[in-house]
């Protein structure tokens, strides 16, 4: 994770934040299990088959989905294909550099991908046009344009929103169909500061923490993907706590961003 432009956080600020956390509140006034403000503009890129512009606090990402026909993988001749790519654009933060994805971007893209893929949100079987020959390929591309922490959740909710409205043409001459959707996975990313667990960390909180964990669940209460990051550790009790927080917070997000869809 990048350091702040001014280097690391001052010691004074650190202890202030940590002290406040003990009272159950964060520097920006949120409770530990409270998300920042979420705004999602759907169909932000009309020329894409699905898209969303997500603002999670000051973090901003654009999700664009292109759906094209192509060949299936040899070992899954009856399944459509999905790929996920995250571009941490250099415009998003002073120290982000142009170039191929680094290990941070790769991890983020893979965690987002895993949540969508393992929940089987997209019904890939229905995206098979001609077994072994032609299937639909769902390209999920995400531009991170402004960075203030918690990219993973901003991306995941953007992808879920964009897929919910995405349409594709199995036949170039035929009609548009909605992308077949099974469920709505939501990821919740939490960090540990001191011994407190808090969700949706902003940049300062990411910098102060040394352990991060993401839990992705579906509306049926099932865990679909997990990923611990950073050099710190969690106790088994804390693992339990993050799973509970993930379900509770995730349900709130799902309600908020998809209320009208489901």
């Amino acid at each position, binding site marked *: 994770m990048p350091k702040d432009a001014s280097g690391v956080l001052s010691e004074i600020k650190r202890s202030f934040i940590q002290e406040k956390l003990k009272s159950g509140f964060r520097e920006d006034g949120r409770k530990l299990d409270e998300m920042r403000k979420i705004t999602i503009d759907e169909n*932000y*890129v*009309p*020329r*894409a088959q699905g*898209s969303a512009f997500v603002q999670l606090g*000051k973090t*901003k990402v*654009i999700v*664009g*989905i*292109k759906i*094209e026909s192509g060949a299936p993988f040899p070992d899954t001749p009856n399944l459509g294909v999905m790929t996920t*790519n995250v*571009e941490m*654009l*250099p*415009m*998003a*933060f*002073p120290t982000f550099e*142009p170039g*191929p994805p680094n290990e941070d971007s790769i991890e983020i893209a893979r965690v987002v991908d895993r949540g969508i893929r393992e929940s089987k949100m997209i019904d890939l079987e229905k995206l098979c046009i001609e077994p072994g020959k032609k299937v639909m390929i769902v*390209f999920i*591309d995400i*531009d991170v*344009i*402004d*960075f*203030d922490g918690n990219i993973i959740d901003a991306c995941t909710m953007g992808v879920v929103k964009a897929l919910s409205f995405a349409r594709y043409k199995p036949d170039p*001459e035929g009609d548009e169909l909605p992308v077949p959707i099974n469920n709505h996975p939501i990821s919740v990313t939490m960090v540990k500061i001191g011994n407190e667990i808090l969700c949706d960390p902003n940049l300062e909180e990411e910098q102060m923490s040394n352990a991060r964990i993401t839990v992705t669940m579906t509306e049926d209460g099932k865990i679909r993907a997990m990923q611990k990051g950073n050099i710190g550790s969690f106790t088994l009790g804390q693992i339990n706590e993050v799973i509970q927080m993930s379900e509770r917070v995730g349900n709130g997000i799902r309600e908020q961003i998809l209320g009208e869809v489901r």
Partner: protein
Amino acid sequence: MGTPSDKKLIDENGLRLDGRGPDELRPIRIRTDVLERADGSAMIEWGGNKIIVAVYGPREAYPKHTQDIERAVIKARYNMAAFSVDERKRPGPDRRSVEISKVISEALTAAVMVEQFPRTQIDVFIEVVQADAGTRIASLTAASVALANAGIPMKDFVVGCTAGRVEGKVVLDLSKEEDNFGQADLPMAVLQKSGEVVLIQMDGELSKEEFDSAVAMIMDATKRIHEIQRNALVEKYQNIEAGGEE
């Protein structure tokens, strides 16, 4: 289904597919301060184009051998989002975007007081979120606003526009279909006050007379476009005076 050659791009009344007259611009809208982290930013919507520009700097040029002891180096990076075009674009620079980044960098250098910041670089990151013909001059037009938004001292504004030849007629501000099936494309950018040309590229086929009339159309349009640039910045300053940034 019509093939390109079947489709009439200009009708009997001289109107274009989208209803515009020959010297009419598509709708243009510019907003500033669209990003938190960048030192300056702007977003331009120009027809179906949707482009975000962020400016960082002046900051120490890195690696060191890229420093110029006499001036700031402007490094524009034009990038198309994977989903910005009809067929998904593989991420990363291609030869086209390298060339466009170069001509944009050069055009902006003419407008910025680069002599004030030796050994530094000013990064101009351009993300084309949706592309709809004329992205390079739309990027340049927005970049100029983003530089001003970042408080970087400038001699003048860069304003760009294209003209071209479509079914034998010279028209302003080509649309995507006119660009694809037209006969010439002339993107150009000038310094607003002096009228000097800082970017010009052309491809297709133009007689000298057609070229002259295309240039005249562009010069006229840049005045209108600059108004939009100015308003975008004024709007910001008015907001600041009023004590808030929306």
